């Protein structure tokens, strides 16, 4: 058994596409935050010079995720160190999709009912109903409606019980 004795450790780097693009590899979001994406930063620098946005094709590894390479501060034209850029440039140029997933109105939201009761006990006696949903923020390069809809239908929302809506920001 390759990984069976360590469930949950996420060591299965082998990527097999079953129903679209969900990755079962190691969560990559953390890696992405540690170092600035070279292609994104270069595009940003170039954009500033050209005055228009032409994203450079990203290099991708076997897992389909962008390859990040060590870069020095001399490559930045704004005098900021990579570490301070780390803090602010992550996702700055990457469009963000804000997806709201809510339980269909006809279904009983039992957790929401409990919250209603709690709010009423706190003195908010005019509270009649509470519905609890999810807010999912996805940073992605190409948030076309087709792709965001596909993402929601394939994974983020279960349309048997949930509705979703979204907005592209940034």
């Amino acid at each position, binding site marked *: 058994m390759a990984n069976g004795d360590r*469930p*949950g450790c*996420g060591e299965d780097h082998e990527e097999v596409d079953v129903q679209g693009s*969900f990755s079962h590899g190691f969560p990559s979001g953390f890696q992405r935050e540690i170092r600035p994406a070279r292609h994104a930063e270069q595009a940003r620098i170039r954009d500033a010079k050209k005055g228009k946005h032409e994203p450079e094709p990203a290099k991708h590894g076997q897992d389909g995720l962008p390859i990040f390479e060590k870069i020095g501060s001399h490559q930045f034209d704004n005098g900021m160190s990579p570490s301070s850029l780390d803090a602010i440039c992550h996702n700055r140029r990457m469009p963000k999709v804000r997806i709201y997933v809510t339980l269909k109105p006809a279904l009983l939201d*039992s957790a929401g009912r409990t919250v209603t009761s709690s709010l009423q006990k706190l003195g908010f006696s005019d509270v009649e109903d509470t519905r609890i949903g999810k807010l999912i923020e996805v940073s992605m390069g190409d948030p076309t409606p087709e792709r965001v809809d596909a993402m929601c239908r*394939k*994974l*983020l929302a279960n349309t*048997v*019980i949930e509705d979703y809506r979204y907005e592209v920001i940034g």
Partner: protein
Amino acid sequence: MKVAVIRFPGSNCDQDALHALRDQIGLGADYVWHADTSLAGFDAVFIPGGFSYGDYLRCGAVASRAPIMGAVQEFATAGKPVIGVCNGFQVLTEAGLLPGALLLNEKERFVCKDVSLRPESRNSLWLSGVDKVLRIPIAHGEGRYTCDPETLKILNEEGRIAFRYCSPSGELGSAWNPNGSLDHIAGILNEKGNVLGMMPHPERACNASFGNADGALILKALTLVNSRA
């Protein structure tokens, strides 16, 4: 007859399932890791309970998109026996192999106790050995089955409701429904009857020394299946 017990990160009834299938029912059984893509050599699939992927997003949502699920889909389409218990039931609904969905229990609480189950269908291999009201434990927080009225009508008309929660003598009523499930549904079948999803844990009730062996009446059905080998 060899049964594949699918393991996801966070499955926690996998060992119970393997033990019940091997040692109580006497079948061949082995684990299959979720990142595998083949079920070659297996004649049935058991998707065990647990908290696959920590119930992130929704119970069973991430697991239902795991690499092995492509093979499970083919397996089910080919008419071979598939059972999903508890989180396994949630995985099957999320994968679209069974209709409907499982919501947070009506009273929000995690419920862990023995319940009575009334067999409701004669259309499935899985119920071929069940001739009485069963006593089987449940242990879940999200077991409130729901589906749209049209689906419920179809499930009823086609005899695809496998089990309903009931009193020890078989009567239905909200007092016997532990989670607010629609129409007291505890388990359902797919169109062909080869895929069974149920919230109660038959693998936990396969040995009389543990209280009762009613769960074995369900799992023993697999002994009737001709092995491909």
